[in-house]
């Protein structure tokens, strides 16, 4: 099990950041990801592995007011 934005989410072998985003259906063009507090750049999403127990935050990047 991992935590995604304070909610539990099932973990499985081979889960990368990109796999997780696809599973959760995040499709927004501008997304910020942190795993255990560490920023993960978009170019690393496909190879950055998620481990069981990780704490992931996915934020839609907005700047309007």
């Amino acid at each position: 099990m991992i935590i995604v934005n304070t909610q539990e989410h099932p973990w499985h072998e081979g889960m990368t950041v990109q796999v997780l985003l696809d599973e959760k259906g995040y499709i927004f063009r501008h997304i910020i990801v942190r795993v255990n507090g560490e920023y993960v750049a978009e170019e690393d999403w496909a190879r950055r592995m998620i481990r069981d127990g990780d704490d992931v935050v996915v934020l839609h990047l907005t700047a309007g007011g």
Partner: protein
Amino acid sequence: MELERYRRNLPEISPAQQDVLAEKRVLIVGCGGLGGYIIEALARAGAGHLRLMDGDTFKESDLNRQLLASSMNLGRPKTLAARQRVLAVNSLVEVEESPYFLSVENAAEALAGCHLAIDALDNVPSRLLLAEACARAGLPMLHGAVGAWYGQAALLPPGSKLLERVYPAHCRGLESAEKMAMLAPVVMQVAALQASLALRFLLGDEQPAELLWHLDMERGSLEKISF
């Protein structure tokens, strides 16, 4: 206090708290989408002193979401429309109009005497500038941002680095590089969240923290996350 005007604030805001609220001074930077609704909520609730800062005028593309934008005031300063609106809904509120954009030169003066600064801005560099000014002044900053079906808010302690984490350096031209959709109901929700946090802070019921409220209307979620 004006008992009848504020009767429906009871019992969540007691008469004694209402008097506390009347003594508070709040800087609202940006009087467009978020700012318009925040100003409306704080004025109606009875925040005593509102300092309204924005150098912009209303344009036609503001009409889809900004409370204070109307066909009558296109081309007029946003701070002027905001002041008139506040005085129309609650003449007990003292309004200071500052029809300028936030800058390095005017930030300290804008914050002087305030208990809280509210970020209702539309770009990242100005937000970071406001955060720096708040750090120097020892003031909390109430951040808010919105785009498409998403938004966020945070009541930040002075000196917080949360915004620097939320906006990595390569993303700081985001809003100017690509104009996102700005939808009225999402703007209203983020503004309502900010106004609620502002009131609770001014009343002593909420403390600044390194936490981000994240609204995702695509999934129908509102999360309070460490970031």
